[in-house]
């Protein structure tokens, strides 16, 4: 199965413009090649979303594989009643929330350890502007990471889907199994928290090399 899918993907990947639902319907009929195309199309967004949720690359990839495994296992009962990405992110969010709850106590210890590591990195002596820039950039990323990590899980998921995946309020509502007004409330509180925690990181404070991004 592995070799045949790899060869077929190489042959077909540039040519397909089919929608996700159409591909998934073919997967339901037993077309493993279309499943490979879906994986290629959504692998990065799923894993990156999971990484920002759980903040561990290895766990994110493991959960990402679990997402696609579940998609494949439920192929027989797939019905295109909702967007494929909504369904996929619903699985991903469910897995991430479960993992976060299951490892909450362990993560508190890891956060403390990470602070020590970050602290050590900041204490490195000045070696030059490029090193300083990269240290500043790393420090900013750490602050962003922590600010997001401190959000309640559902607010975190809502922000990540809204900001990085650009899902609509209605789609986020389907993923989180709540109303649109509940999603807006989640986002309001999440962004309010992030604004207060990251207010000092305005554009003027950024190194020159990082300005003008986006």
């Amino acid at each position, binding site marked *: 199965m592995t070799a045949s899918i790899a060869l077929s993907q190489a042959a077909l990947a540039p040519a397909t413009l089919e929608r996700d639902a159409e591909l998934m319907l073919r997967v339901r009929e037993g077309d493993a090649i279309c499943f490979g195309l879906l994986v290629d199309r959504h692998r990065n967004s799923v894993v990156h979303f999971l990484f*920002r949720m759980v903040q561990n690359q290895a766990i994110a990839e493991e959960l990402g594989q679990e997402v696609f495994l579940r998609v494949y296992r439920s192929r027989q009962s797939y019905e295109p009643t909702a967007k494929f990405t909504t369904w996929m992110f619903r699985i991903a969010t469910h897995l991430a929330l479960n993992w976060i709850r299951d490892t909450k106590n362990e993560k508190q210890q890891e956060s403390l350890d990470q602070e020590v590591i970050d602290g050590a990195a900041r204490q490195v002596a000045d070696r030059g502007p490029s090193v300083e820039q990269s240290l500043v950039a790393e420090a*900013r990323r750490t602050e962003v990471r922590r600010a997001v990590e401190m959000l309640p899980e559902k607010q975190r998921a809502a922000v990540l889907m809204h900001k990085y995946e650009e899902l609509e309020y209605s789609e986020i509502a389907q993923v989180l199994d709540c109303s649109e007004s509940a999603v807006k409330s989640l986002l309001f509180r999440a962004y309010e928290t992030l604004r207060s925690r990251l207010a000092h990181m305005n554009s003027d404070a950024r190194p020159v090399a990082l300005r003008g991004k986006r």
Partner: protein
Amino acid sequence: MECPVQNRDTASLLLDYCDRKLDRDLMVQMDRHVEHCPSCQQMMSAQRTVWEALDEWEPAPVTPDFNARLFARLEEDRPSWWRRLIEAPQLLWKPAMGMAAACAVLVTVSVLRTPDPTEVGTGTPAMAQQEAQQEAEQLDKTLSDMEMLQALEGPLAGEETSSSKSL
């Protein structure tokens, strides 16, 4: 226009305004409002800072062997050929299994009922012919024995006849 910052229900308007996702009419209304609202201006500035900071958070690339590991797990997940045969609905395995079971019973019965070829008795035509031959041989022997007896009784029978006549 009511300030969206003051009302949580409409705060999402400001988010969409910052992201340029509102329709044209609403965008025009918001432009006019924000131009004169310090609260909205402050919130928009802070929100842009948040978004730019979030943009800087780029995750590491997915490892190159992600697909290979996934397909390997799918392969492990694949059921055995026997299980696929049982569960494949298109093969209509239930009636097929029933027919197979009936055939197995018939074969078993026929094997059990087939007589032992070493046993003597009626059965195959060859055995019947053998039996007939044996009977014929026995009949011939019996007839020859009878002839022998008659030959032996002949002179004695003649002597008895003559003696009966002489009396």
